[in-house]
């Protein structure tokens, strides 16, 4: 029993912080890049839109692990660029998240009813003012639910960083259960894996609760999904 507590403690103190750091870092990078991308895709000139679309397809179409290995081993072998493991993971998964997030924001912006832009222009707002004061505030609210999904996704993606030596929750789990097999027996492997699963689950749950709270704070009374409420 004390083994369980000990392992749990180790997972939480050694593995969890890095997982959290990675998750926040990935979401942050994804947000920083993804939002401008979405914006350009909706409002930019055609060649710019093309480029953004290409970027999105590229990073969404390649498996996360492949991306990580490309940034980590691929770059080092071909171009002699040696990134520390954390940086490789952050870049690879961060760029990937930015592609997904750009899709989320693009969808949200486009969901805002066309009438909103028309009304804004009709009272004399410039396009910029309309986007800033009318479109984006609504798009932001619309993007919270899909963004919650992205959070879940990214949290699970962080476990892939273990493949290149980042000591996060998954790697810490393997370090523990490989030892435990020699001391207590192989059946314990399952126990340790369950503990890790429990922690991932708890993180997802807490994240969802937090985002739900944000969503309810931002909710517009009576506003269901998109654009107009006719009667």
């Amino acid at each position, binding site marked *: 029993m004390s083994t369980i507590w000990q392992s749990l403690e180790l997972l939480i103190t050694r593995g969890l912080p890095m997982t959290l750091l990675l998750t926040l870092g990935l979401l942050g990078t994804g947000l*920083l890049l993804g939002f401008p991308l979405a914006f350009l895709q909706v409002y930019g000139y055609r060649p710019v839109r093309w480029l953004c679309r290409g970027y999105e397809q590229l990073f969404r179409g390649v498996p996360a692990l492949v991306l990580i290995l490309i940034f980590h081993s691929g770059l080092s072998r071909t171009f002699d660029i040696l990134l520390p493991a954390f940086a490789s993971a952050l870049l690879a998964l961060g760029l990937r998240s930015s592609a997904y997030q750009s899709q989320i924001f693009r969808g949200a912006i486009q969901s805002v009813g066309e009438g909103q832009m028309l009304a804004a222009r009709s009272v004399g707002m410039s396009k910029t003012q309309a986007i800033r004061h009318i479109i984006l505030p609504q798009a932001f609210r619309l993007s919270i639910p899909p963004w919650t999904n992205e959070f879940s996704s990214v949290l699970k993606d962080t476990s892939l960083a273990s493949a290149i030596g980042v000591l996060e929750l998954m790697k810490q789990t393997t370090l523990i259960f490989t030892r435990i097999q020699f001391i207590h027996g*192989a059946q314990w492997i399952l126990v340790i894996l369950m503990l890790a699963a429990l922690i991932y689950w708890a993180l997802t749950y807490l994240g969802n609760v937090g985002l739900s709270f944000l969503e309810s704070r931002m909710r517009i009374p009576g506003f269901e999904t998109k654009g107009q409420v006719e009667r």
Partner: protein
Amino acid sequence: MKKASLAILVLTLVAGLWTVAAVGETYKVASDTTWPPFEWSDAEGNLLGFDLDVMRCIGVLQGFEIDISSYDWEIIFDDVGSGRMDIGASGATIRPDREEKVDFSAPYWTSDQAILVRADSELNIITALAGGYTVGAQLETTGAGFITDLIAAGINVTLVEYTLYPLAVLDLINGNIDAVIQDEPASVASATAEEDISVAGVIKTDENFGFFVAEGDPKGLLALINDGVAQLKALGVYDNLIAAYMGTDLVKVEAAWRASIGLLDDGDVVGFASQLATLANE
């Protein structure tokens, strides 16, 4: 959210600077720390084991610090070979295909392979390997290579590969495979820990383990390492480490290590090894 992402950007920049700045004489050591008794992580997260302590002792003698990272076995040769990590200390057998990526030190250990089977099975070493059974091995290990060679030679055996050795053992216990091939010390340790499995036999493969560095040894580390090993042997430290790690109870060794590591931190290589050996064998 914006603050967090800014912090992360800064962190990434710092991480990037890491590689650029030569931080004195601290060498980055890569090790697949899932392999007692050569390298593993104890219940408190300390990294210990024969390979790691040998490296630590060499560091003290030769005047450098080491920073150990837990690496996945599959990319360890790539990462040391490319120079991202300075030294690999991970129970690696010296093999020609590996020598294409890294440079090895002089052999510091000789190992054999062992075959594990379920205690209640009738298999012996011959039948396990040639009787049409399924044998598990860790990816990229010499054990896996051995089975692959058998298959190529027409022997009737099936190979199942695992990313981690304990997963193979788990499958053996559960009956999904019939045997596991793995270096002898680890096999013996597993058999000791589990009632359900036993060592069917040992194959004398006389594999030599070597520490490894980037191709061409740009930092001139191999000389330091080989010389260090020689010194450890002369001082009796090497034998003490063997006595401490090979064939002993893992939990005892862990406790002994935690009790003795202070000596090594103070620079007392001989004292550390002798106390470790004593306490581990009590």
